[in-house]
């Protein structure tokens, strides 16, 4: 396929994945490609990255798509291993012989295909031990070929093959094995610092190997199904579009990483907004006072700048299973910008309710505080199934008097009440006393008020119910709030 066609397909795919690629950037990329030789994959990749991706959070997505469209076509990625450089091949053969020598002592020849799974695992361990990159790559190829069981045309996602390959290699125990072997090899006792460093080193090597395996699987899939179909199956949401309720563990990690810079930016924006707010009315007294230095001429008019007061915030969050992640993120988010509020108090509930403000007060580390919320808060009253009605009632009884005209109350949850009594009068009472009462719901709008969700019933008494499925929506809500 000519480069130009490939490029336009590539850019369409970037846009489909949610990257904002403008026309000028597209043209820039074409210009860049002209001066960079396409044979130099790395340079080519960085050239496209520099012209098309203007946000570091999008880099991962870009990399995946790039790999699907470009990286996998180079000569070094030929599936048959005929093209291997001779000396490398010979070296590997020697290693294989070595391993075999230790094993049952079969005759050499036939390359890797004749190896048993145990031998492959042993070789992998040696490669990881010594950090031998070429060996790791070759082994990644070999193990995918052997263990993934890929069949052409089979409509199975890449993760399935990845799982099958890794399970066969027993990577989970590999770290421990490596550590043990390392301890044996070094004669003297390792200090705990050294041990820690070794562990990190091995972890990064294993991670690297996993990526090799992953890209090998991807490469085979592309060869089988074509780039466009493959790109579609690989399409992943950007971190700010990941849904809280369905995030995988990896996505959670990337969400956490994206959260901090986001809050920092938001805080900067809010401070600026507060300072450079609209111009107020003329401050007559101040103007007259300053006019004295001009002989009574009001040459320098003074204005009264509005100083919007910071709101007091009470966060009441459901932390039962399905919405726990959402509550965690919202709490983290709110506490990360807590100096934008005059006071933040937080409460969590399932069917009982508990105040958790103290966890955040006692430490500077928000992550740790959240962990303590999950483990120490006393939120179960009867059976540990969400009971909004009871939780709200208790909340109002204990803390209702603290709600005043400066307070904004945030209620977080999906309002799936397990058919308990709603007690929506509590929300109504809260609204009478508070400045605002808002409800944030992590479910898509189309699910609201279906099944046992009674968000409509509560929502009628609030100042607004907002869908808050991802970081982007959460951020924009908090920005309007502060």
């Amino acid at each position, binding site marked *: 396929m000519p480069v130009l066609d490939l490029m336009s397909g590539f850019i369409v795919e970037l846009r489909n994945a949610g990257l904002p690629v403008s026309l000028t950037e597209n043209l820039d990329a074409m210009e860049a490609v002209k001066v960079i030789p396409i044979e130099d994959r790395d340079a080519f990749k960085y050239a496209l990255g520099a012209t098309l991706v203007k946000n*570091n959070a999008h880099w991962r997505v870009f990399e995946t798509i790039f790999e699907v469209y470009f990286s996998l076509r180079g000569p070094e990625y030929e599936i048959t291993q005929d093209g291997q450089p001779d000396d490398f091949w010979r070296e590997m053969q020697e290693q294989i012989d070595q391993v075999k020598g230790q094993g049952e002592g079969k005759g050499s020849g036939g390359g890797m295909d004749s190896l048993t799974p145990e031998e492959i695992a042993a070789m992998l361990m040696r490669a990881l031990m010594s950090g031998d990159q070429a060996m790791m790559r070759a082994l990644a190829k070999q193990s995918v070929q052997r263990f993934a069981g890929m069949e052409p045309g089979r409509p199975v996602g890449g993760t399935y093959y990845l799982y099958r390959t890794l399970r066969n290699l027993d990577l989970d125990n590999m770290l421990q094995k490596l550590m043990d072997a390392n301890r044996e090899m070094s004669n003297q006792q390792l200090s705990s*610092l050294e041990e820690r*460093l070794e562990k990190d080193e091995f972890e990064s090597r294993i991670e690297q190997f996993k990526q090799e395996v992953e890209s090998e699987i991807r490469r085979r899939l592309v060869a089988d199904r074509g780039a466009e179909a493959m790109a579609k199956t690989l399409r992943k949401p950007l971190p700010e579009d990941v849904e809280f309720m369905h995030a995988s563990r990896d996505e959670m990690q990337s969400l956490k990483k994206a959260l901090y810079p986001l809050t*920092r*930016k938001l805080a900067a924006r809010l401070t600026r907004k507060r300072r450079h707010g609209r111009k107020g009315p003329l401050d007559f007294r101040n103007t007259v006072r300053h006019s004295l230095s001009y002989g009574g001429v009001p040459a320098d008019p003074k204005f009264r700048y509005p100083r919007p007061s910071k709101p007091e915030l009470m966060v009441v969050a459901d932390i039962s299973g399905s919405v726990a992640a959402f509550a965690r993120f919202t709490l983290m988010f709110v506490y990360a910008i807590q100096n934008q509020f005059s006071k933040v108090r937080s409460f969590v509930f399932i069917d009982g309710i508990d105040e958790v403000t103290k966890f955040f007060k006692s430490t500077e580390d928000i992550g740790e505080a959240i962990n303590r919320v999950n483990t120490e808060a006393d939120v179960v009253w009867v059976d540990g199934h969400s009971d909004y009605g009871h939780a709200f009632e208790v909340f109002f009884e204990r803390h209702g008097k603290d709600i005043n005209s400066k307070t904004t109350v945030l209620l977080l949850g999906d309002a799936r009440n397990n058919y308990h009594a709603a007690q929506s009068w509590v929300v109504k009472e809260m609204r009478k006393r508070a400045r605002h009462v808002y409800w944030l719901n992590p479910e898509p709008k189309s699910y609201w008020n279906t099944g046992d969700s009674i968000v409509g019933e509560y929502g009628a008494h609030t100042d607004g119910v907002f869908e808050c499925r991802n970081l982007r929506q959460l951020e924009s809500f908090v920005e309007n709030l502060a």
Partner: protein
Amino acid sequence: MRVKPRFKDIATVRSGLKKENYLADDGIAGVVYLADRLGKPVLIEGPAGTGKTQLAKSVADMTGARLIRLQCYEGLDESKALYEWNYKKQLLRIQSDKKSDSWSEVHDDIFSEEFLLTRPLLEAITSEEPVVLLIDEVDRVEVETEALLLEILSDYQVSIPELGTITAKQIPLVFLTSNNTRELSEALKRRCLYLHVDYPDLEREKEIVLNKVPDISDNLADQIARIVRSIRQLDLKKAPSVSETLDWARTLMLLGIETIDEKEAKETLHILLKYQTDIAKAAKELSVTK
């Protein structure tokens, strides 16, 4: 106006930067090369202390160009970034010979280049000799002020109402750095090549330490790089930057330490980390492993 390219290929950029004691990876060298070939500014983003500003300086040194630096801050305006009329001189000119000139003559005269005070941006494009323009911490100016930069970044020209448009005599290499405290405008991003400089990987960091700290042993540099990598993996308020790694390496050298053990690592952690909670966390993580 198209001048001949400064660099032959990416490898030249890389080796040139290395001579200036700046160790570039493929991405950095590639983008600098592209910036020259396409005549586009480079927007460099990344955590603090990863050598963003240093890159511009090193490129200037490498090409033998003059470095013109515009430090951005909140409240930066046209008269400090672009140009300003020299009012005092204009006044003097008007008062000096009142009789001889007609009004129109004076008017034309006082708005000539003689009375123009050039500020960094204008200076960069009017300069005869090659220059590298560094616009530092561009995220500190307000969104509205960013617009000041747009004309110069896309067309390398400055429009002055009284004088007309001043076009660049040569296209300077432009670097913008940002600490990412706010999202830059689309308009600005679109005009630039984007480069994200992250913490270096293990090998590169070790090389940087070896390069920048004289007389350090290979073994110690390796150990430093590995400890720093482990620390960066922790969930910290502020991860140690490259400059802090270098400070730490220098400290260890001064203390005459050849191999780091736990005790020394803990005692000198405050050079790497600046928050008490971070230090406590790192100390705990580094000693308890199992």
